[in-house]
């Protein structure tokens, strides 16, 4: 009996691993072939416009571009499986090193963004659902609509103009003022954490002032989405019979909303929040451009434009890992929140 159970767990784990491996392979294959379909000569990105023909040809050979595409792909996967993701042609660093530098910048921004987004989005969604059709509902709806429809690029520039240039409340583009460069030793790559660890509180304050605006912006955009989703999940729950029953029992309205309805709405909501977070972790290219934030989104986009395939593929693996990881996490949370899905 016990043996059988262990066997089935191993089987399930094996199945999971196979799925994950296949997902990665598919992701890499699609990215790789898209990269090769783009009508850009990757060797040209290295040698530049002026290179004599023989230099261009030699670099093409060095990059293996004269081999058939499937062979190039097989070579790449073989090396990647051994942990060698190659070197970026643009930064001349090993790709993993670049990612170790850019991902923490995005992680810091995205985490603050999702904390703001979920922290405000869920209560606002609940509020809108409770006051359905009322002023509160309209206000939240307008806020969400603005969040959906205003280009983030524009809003970012306006934010900089008002809060940075005019009012001076926040720091400008970049992660930290030049005066604080080299004052924070890199441990995790998360500036706030590293500054706190080093006890550099002035640098911490400066990094925070730089982070505040882009994080608020990303927070606002995810809040728009999360509040709308919360509202609709809550409306579903509030119309359910158990709510009527709870009211009939005389429970307080607050208890009904927060303990009963929201708890049930949380189940699908966890997936929504996890996916929003994953979306932010991909790196928001436009936000990173406006705020000169050296993150993953900018890195991947810049690499793609220059057909720097090693960098693009490395970035893709990170993004894939984030999605797979957060999906697994939301599955686990799902089980914790919904007793029906727990194994008996």
């Amino acid at each position: 009996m016990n043996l059988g159970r262990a066997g089935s767990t191993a089987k399930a784990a094996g199945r999971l691993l196979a799925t994950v491996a296949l997902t990665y392979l598919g992701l890499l294959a699609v990215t790789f072939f898209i990269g090769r379909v783009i009508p850009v000569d990757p060797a040209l990105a290295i040698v530049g416009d002026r290179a004599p023909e023989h230099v261009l040809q030699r670099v093409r050979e060095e990059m293996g571009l004269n081999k058939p595409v499937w062979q190039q792909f097989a070579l790449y996967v073989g090396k990647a499986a051994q942990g060698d993701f190659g070197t970026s042609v643009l930064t001349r660093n090993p790709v993993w090193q670049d990612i170790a530098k850019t991902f923490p910048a995005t992680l810091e921004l995205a985490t603050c963004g999702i904390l703001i987004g979920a922290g405000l989005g869920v209560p606002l969604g609940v509020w809108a659902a409770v006051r359905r059709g009322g002023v509160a509902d309209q206000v939240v709806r307008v806020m969400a609509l603005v969040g959906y429809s205003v280009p983030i690029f524009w809003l970012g520039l306006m934010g900089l103009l008002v809060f940075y240039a005019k009012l001076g409340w926040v720091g400008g583009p970049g992660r930290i003022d030049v005066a604080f460069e080299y004052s924070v030793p890199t441990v995790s790559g998360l500036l706030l954490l590293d500054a706190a660890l080093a006890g550099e509180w002035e640098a911490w304050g400066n990094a925070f002032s730089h982070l505040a605006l882009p994080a608020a912006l990303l927070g606002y955009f995810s809040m728009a989405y999360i509040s709308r989703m919360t509202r609709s999940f809550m409306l579903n729950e509030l119309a359910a019979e158990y709510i009527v029953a709870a009211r009939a029992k005389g429970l307080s309205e607050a208890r009904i909303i927060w303990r009963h309805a929201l708890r049930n709405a949380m189940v699908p909501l966890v997936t929504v929040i996890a996916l929003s977070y994953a979306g932010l972790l991909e790196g928001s290219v436009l936000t990173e451009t406006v705020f000169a934030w050296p993150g993953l989104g900018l890195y991947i986009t810049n690499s793609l434009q220059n057909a720097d395939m090693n960098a693009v593929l490395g970035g893709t693996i990170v993004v894939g890992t984030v999605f797979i990881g957060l999906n697994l996490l939301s599955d686990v949370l799902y089980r914790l929140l919904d007793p029906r899905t727990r194994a008996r």
Partner: protein
Amino acid sequence: MLPTSLPTLSRRVLALAALAALTALTAPASHAATPKDTLVVALAFDDIISLDPAEVFEISAGELMGNAYDRLVRFDVADPSRLMGDVAKGWTVSADGKSFSFELKPGLKFASGNPLTAEDVAWSLQRSVLIDKSPAFILTQFGLTKDNVKEKVKATGALTLTLETDKAYAPSFVLNCLTANVAAIVDKKLVLSKEANGDLGYGWLKTNYAGSGAWKIREWRANELVVLERNNNYHGAKAKLARVMFRHFKESATQRLTLEKGDVDVARNLTPQDLAALGANKDVKVTATPKGTVYYISLNQKNPNLAKPEVREAMKWLVDYAGIGETLIKNIGVVNQNFLPQGLLGASKESPYKLDVAKAKALLAKAGLPNGFKVTMDVRTVQPVSGIAEAFQQTAKRAGVEIEILPGDGKQTLTKYRARTHDMYIGQWGADYWDPHTNADTFARNPDNADDAKSKPLAWRNAWAIPELTKKADAAVLERDAKKRAAMYTEIQAEFRKTSPFLMIFQQTEVAALRGNVEGLKLGPTSDTTYYAGVIKK
């Protein structure tokens, strides 16, 4: 519960309290200007792909090389036709014109502390030829090859070296080539100590520093930050500031905001709109210099319509040069209808063309195309080229020439252009080194027009077969009398204006905006001659 039932007054109080709290929370850390001993420059430097002078060919990296590495000779920024010794104290050219001897200044040192000797100079030149990266042709064009370079470039003493060329070139041509980054001097001892698998230290130097210039490169963080620090071992006037920090701000709007705020001292990539807007700011001033970069539209001669001489000429009458000059390139360029930018030996000021639709129509009719024709143009989606392309599209339409613009990313249009599968292309060309041959070589020389040609200059890319003009350009580079040489380029340009498939449009003016307290910054005519050593902050 939510405070919807609170009386109006207390709600207002609450709102005010919230606002106050917000203000307090985000109260700015004292807004420091940039550090007094540091120049902070906003620059889009995503073009940097290497710090090895044997490989560097990009604008931003070129600027770093000019500040961080010495070479034998430099040209005088105030008068680019004048050459001065950098580490060379003097030089002589042999009677047959094929041997150059240099004597170095004594007591030179690299930033590392190693002495700088003739052996370092010779080895650096050899290394550039042996590594054979994109800019190596600047040295190999006077006969240096991987096989002979150790013979041809030799240290003859601790402070003397000789360089031999295969032909008797104009001495100014050879010396001008030696001002380029590819001829920069690297610290042989340091670089060789980092060598791996016989790579001559390339794997290390592409992200590190081994020079002797006014500045040391402390760090290059791709798309984020570059830091230069004063080199106290420098042989010339030492840098006045302690460091220069370049911050990668891609957007003009971002550069402008940070400049106005005082978080950067210099903004280098501003659009004409942002420059105009800054005009009203009293804390900001601008400096401008004509650059050795020309912009052009080219016509691929593989297209049978564009190959007709009358059509080539007609197209030149369909560009609204004056209109473009007054709007699209205002403050960032001046109309120039020749392939040599102003400032180079032999540059011509002739500009015979203007918008003349009637004349163009007559020429098209003569070519058998009275109703015009349809054609495509590959255009990078950046300003000002896309604006110029659209302006040309409008004016050409008036003579019946229907231009379809194919927008693309820079690398994408370039891939197509280099394969010469375009119809028309709008591009730019910056002088690789400060000598007229750099542009004559690409615009007016095409030694082999076959598809598999070894050398593929711009004339080749547009399939323009010009054996006669090629001979003239070859002769000009051998003319040792500067006056005669200038006259030869004048003649080549006259023919080029008339018959070439190139519509030369303008010469770039580079503009930088700086805070009022920054002094001594002068943009150079080439990317590697914008120096920071003399800059001060008041």
